[in-house]
């Protein structure tokens, strides 16, 4: 099956070539899940539960960056990047063999389909990034992450500190502007992000919602976080923020109903910051 390239008016030779090559890396399936290149034992179940009847294709344009060595299985840096696919409205991150597989969801809004964060892994597992386009198709990329076990069943580091509750909700962060005007937003919120699986019997306690808004309240992007997101969630997002905006707002809420608000100043220009794409070279 060949997908129609968005915004395509005439089929130029190059475009035609691309369309011809496309079947080489997209394996569409409708009725049942496409065969998993990572041979995960739970893939079929995971697809049904996560995507229902929606169309799912494996797509190399969905990039995932994970470290070549896991230093700390409670803090594994992951970058999900679906910027090569046009019209992505939602990005989700899954870990097949985690006791809790759904890691987070990014509703893009004015943000690019890009998020960098840290997560817990309970054992070596495939990590998936699924990007849904406005047409409703899920484009899935995956990597196999080797790791020692225990990230999800370990107590939060905060649980070793008597005064951990004093720091919950403290936030730190900064916004940069890339040359093309894109705002690069990095935020850290103190929170134990308890999975509920640690043997100290601490119940699940985690930030489940993190919305980004303009100063006037207009939504820019939305995040749903789940238990596998690492303690003290630290995220990097790229989004369009009007040049006139001097700040943006984060509003988070944990599963106990506590609301956390942050205001980040947005610089007008950042001349020494190369465009996001260059910086990645």
């Amino acid at each position, binding site marked *: 099956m060949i997908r129609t390239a968005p915004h395509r008016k005439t089929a130029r030779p190059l475009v035609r070539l691309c369309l011809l090559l496309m079947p080489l890396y997209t394996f569409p399936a409708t009725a049942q899940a496409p065969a998993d290149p990572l041979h995960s034992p739970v893939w079929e179940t995971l697809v049904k539960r996560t995507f229902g009847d929606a169309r799912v294709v494996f797509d190399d344009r969905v990039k995932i960056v994970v470290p070549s060595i896991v230093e700390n299985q409670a803090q594994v840096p992951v970058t999900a990047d679906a910027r090569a696919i046009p019209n992505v409205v939602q990005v989700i991150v899954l870990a097949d063999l985690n006791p809790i597989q759904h890691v987070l969801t990014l509703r893009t809004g004015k943000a690019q389909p890009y998020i960098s964060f840290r997560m817990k892994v309970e054992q070596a597992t495939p990590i998936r990034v699924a990007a849904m386009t406005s047409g409703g198709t899920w484009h899935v990329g995956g990597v*196999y992450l080797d790791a*020692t076990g225990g990230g999800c069943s370990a107590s939060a580091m905060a649980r070793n500190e008597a005064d951990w509750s004093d720091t919950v909700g403290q936030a730190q962060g900064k916004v940069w502007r890339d040359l093309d005007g894109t705002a690069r937003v990095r935020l850290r919120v103190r929170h134990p992000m308890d999975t509920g699986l640690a043997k100290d019997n601490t119940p699940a306690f985690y930030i489940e919602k993190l919305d980004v808004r303009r100063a006037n309240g207009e939504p820019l992007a939305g995040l749903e976080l789940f238990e596998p997101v690492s303690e*003290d969630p630290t995220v990097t997002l790229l989004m369009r923020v009007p040049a006139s905006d001097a700040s943006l707002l984060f509003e988070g809420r944990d599963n106990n109903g506590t609301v956390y608000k942050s205001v980040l100043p947005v610089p007008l220009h950042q001349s020494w910051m190369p465009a996001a794409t260059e*910086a990645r070279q």
Partner: protein
Amino acid sequence: MNCPPVGASSHKLSRRQAMSALAGSALFPWLRIGGAMAAPLSYDLKPEKLANGIWVLRGIPEAISITNGGAIANVSIIDTTAGAVIIDTGPSLRYGEALHMVAKKLTGKDVVRVYLTHFHPDHVFGNQAFDAAIIAAPQGVIDGLKQLGNSFADAMYRAAGDWMRGTELVLPQHVVTNEPEDFGNRRLRPLLLRGHSASDLVIFDELSGILFGGDLVFLDRAPTTPHADIERWRITLATLGGIPHNLLVPGHGPAEPGDRGIRQTRDWLETVEAQIKTAFEKGLDIGEATALPMPEWTAKIALSRYEYERTVMHLYPKLESSRWPRVDQKT
């Protein structure tokens, strides 16, 4: 809970800390099933003579893996008229036993003292092959082992596999202070320092003028930073640079006269720290910082990209918590 517990593990809680100290394995699953398991497991210890009565068993310039059995660190043997002295015991019981035999064979004497330069697993898990009463380390090393030793063992079993069989943590029973120790014809002078870890031991042999730097000094192998205080490490390197010596034995890499190891370790730390801080200040995330090119001179250093990547992961969370302004608002 939105799913059944698939493959939930029974690993200990302290695993997270363990892995942060371990060079670790970047093995792919098919390699783990591969042929290395079937090979007869014996360490090929080749003593390299440095001076009269002093040998080093050179570590392999690799990350800990199921093929090298974790024998990646230098281990030294010193012959004295009072008996053999050993500096660091290697990664496993099997290694310790082989080391014990080599030391006896080279010196024709029993081992009377074992020093541990610091608490990292590639240096301490041969302890079991020796009497704990003669194993000596600064209190900081012993404390570190008490806290993380068992987790290190767990992580080593996973990274090095069957090479670790039977290996258990053995704590040193002798506390090293700044007092020199006399072993018949030799006086060994301990220097209690820190930087690579919270407690690093350097040994100076007055007779030969050889300085055993432990992992404060790396040469032609990239320094590791899981428990490093980089600023303190640089100060310590300046201290080491001021000690006249005939030969310097690094924790990893070749023994050489002069101070190339000290300078290279210092240059590495400065370069890597500056690059990571610059990336951080520009707003790059960990993945982007890891992908940055490194200066050309680092290419000839073994494991440079691997250790750079690890150091990015060690430093970034510290920078995020210490450098970013508070942005939360009262609700």
